[in-house]
């Protein structure tokens, strides 16, 4: 978990830098090495890692528009993912999808730009598991804003009625884009909504990776053993703007005490070295390995070529 969290954080830090290449002096969102919107997940690593350590390649993950932490934790090919974000032909989608639209069927990962759209897809994956008599599970990651979309409510009802191995992880970072959770959501936390569907709910405080690990372990066991869906809500923090370049005029820093709390990666590191007696050398080795993989992925993306323009016409249909 520690290594994954470091990898995600380092990946996102690099992305924040690369993203600005070619965009200045006047910020132009369409220009540079990585064009388009960029939603980074810095600070939200515990949600992805605490859940995904319990998953295998056979389990399905659907993620929203802020997908890098889930993708990395699920084991998406880091090189192809980065190449996709760079718009290169070696990317997961040959440069057609970009950062919000990453698809890696090899590890059953997908994400998309329409809020709430991934939840029913996870229902479909959970149905498939049940129909085929497997014990694989499906996890839909969403933001707390997405829990107000119709797809959330319809999907959970369906998963409950059909008793499917579905887990919805709600990452509560307090905001939709600028609209606060208080202003958008009728309950204090979305795990409370579980009772509306007659399913299990769990709440994880303080962006705590260990608590997330435990809540996820239970939910996955429940799903694998045919006991139905779970909603997990985790209190987490979006360190950056909604997207890179977000002026964040809506955000009052005093409203977000979590941003000043101990960073989850630092906290986990302290815990590992103090409570678990993991040596500094071991921690350092994990960090080095994580960073090396990320560096290689970025290098691969840089070295890859752009697609031929005419490739735009391909892939609408399977041949």
């Amino acid at each position, binding site marked *: 978990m520690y290594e994954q969290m470091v990898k995600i954080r380092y990946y996102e830090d690099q992305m924040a830098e690369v993203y600005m290449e070619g965009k200045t002096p006047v910020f132009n*969102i369409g220009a540079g090495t990585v064009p388009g919107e960029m939603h980074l997940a810095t600070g939200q690593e515990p949600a992805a890692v605490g859940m995904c350590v319990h998953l295998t390649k056979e389990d399905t993950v659907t993620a929203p528009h802020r997908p890098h932490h889930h993708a990395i934790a699920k084991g998406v090919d880091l090189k192809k993912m980065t190449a996709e974000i760079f718009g290169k032909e070696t990317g997961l989608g040959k440069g057609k999808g970009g950062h919000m639209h990453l698809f890696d069927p090899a590890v059953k990962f997908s994400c998309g*730009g329409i809020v709430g759209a991934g939840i029913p897809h996870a229902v479909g994956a959970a149905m498939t598991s049940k129909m085929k008599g497997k014990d694989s599970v499906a996890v839909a990651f969403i933001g707390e804003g997405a829990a107000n979309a119709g797809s959330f409510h319809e999907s959970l009802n369906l998963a409950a009625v059909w008793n499917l191995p579905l887990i919805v992880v709600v990452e509560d970072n307090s905001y939709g884009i600028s609209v606060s959770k208080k202003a958008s959501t009728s309950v204090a936390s979305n795990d409370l909504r579980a009772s509306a569907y007659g399913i299990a709910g769990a709440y994880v405080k303080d962006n705590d990776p260990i608590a997330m690990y435990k809540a996820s372990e239970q939910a996955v066991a429940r799903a694998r053993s045919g006991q139905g869906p779970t909603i997990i809500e985790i209190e987490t923090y979006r360190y950056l703007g909604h997207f890179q370049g977000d002026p964040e*005029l809506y955000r009052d820093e005093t409203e977000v005490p979590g941003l000043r709390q101990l960073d989850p990666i630092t906290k986990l590191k302290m815990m590992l070295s103090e409570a678990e007696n993991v040596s500094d050398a071991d921690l350092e080795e994990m960090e080095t390995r994580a960073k090396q993989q990320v560096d290689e992925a970025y290098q691969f993306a840089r070295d890859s070529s*752009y697609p031929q323009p005419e490739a735009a016409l391909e892939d609408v249909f399977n041949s």
Partner: protein
Amino acid sequence: MLTGNKAMAEAISQEMENDLTVFVLGEDIGKYGGIFGSTQGLIEKFGPERVLDTPISETAFIGAAIGAAAEGMRPITELMFVDFFGVCMDQIYNQMAKIQYMSGGNVKLPMVLMTAVGGGYRDAGQHSQTLYATFAHMPGMKVVAPSNPYDLKGMMVSAIRDDNPVVFMFHKSLQGLGWMEQLDVAVDHVPEEAYTVPLNKAKVVREGKDITIVGIQMMTHYAVEAAKRLSKEGIEAEVIDLRSLAPIDKDTIIESVKKTHRLLVVDEDYLSYGMTAEVSAIVAEEAFFEMEAPISRIAIPDVPIPYSGVLEDFVIPGPNSIYEKVKKIMEDA
């Protein structure tokens, strides 16, 4: 001089002052001022009772706008990107577009649904479409797509005052946003007082005698750019800004092709079953014997908008593709 988004916000603000039944609701339209700035400054002026930030619940808040309009209010609601229409299309085309008709005209829905369209900033298939034809195809709503700040203000005032549902499609590139490529055409002289621009009139933006180019929104600007280059080579293109998609101004188009005898239609929407087909069909039906060359059209070649810059530039028409196409039409003729 105002940018497109300030022109829209000014129109809304003035109409809110004049008419207490006008209010705005949508995602991030309050403190944020709208992702594309169309509601900047409104919450400061009118407060959260008349400028309502909503949850991400498009079906509910667009449906609520319909319900309020039926009760005599004049809601303006924003669907952030037109691409998100999928989650709430029932409210738009089965409800908003049909209630007036099915009530035999007894229920009025004086509302505006505004939404951002357009590509060019590399945001891929779910954030870059125009979908003009999808909306214009459905009877029961007026659909407009203004191409400059003057029209954005004037048509917004008209849309708010109109007693029918109006879908108001504004182009991201024409909003004058600080975070997109800065285009000169996104800034314009805009009178301070409220004025109206009709919702059923196309506009000839450049006169010419050799060929008519019909453009929509950004494509109008690209057509003018191409026309300037063509002019240096002795080809005078007349450029029409379609501006109103439904109802469509047939007269202006027919009048123009009667003068030029050639037609190219340019659209940032998909080619098949789209606005280019509609305009072509109008001309084929009503001015067939006036034509001296086959009707031509350029649009997105029936693929979703791709992410990578090289791919997106290949599928979205630009001044170059218009220029080349006109050259070819003139040479063949």
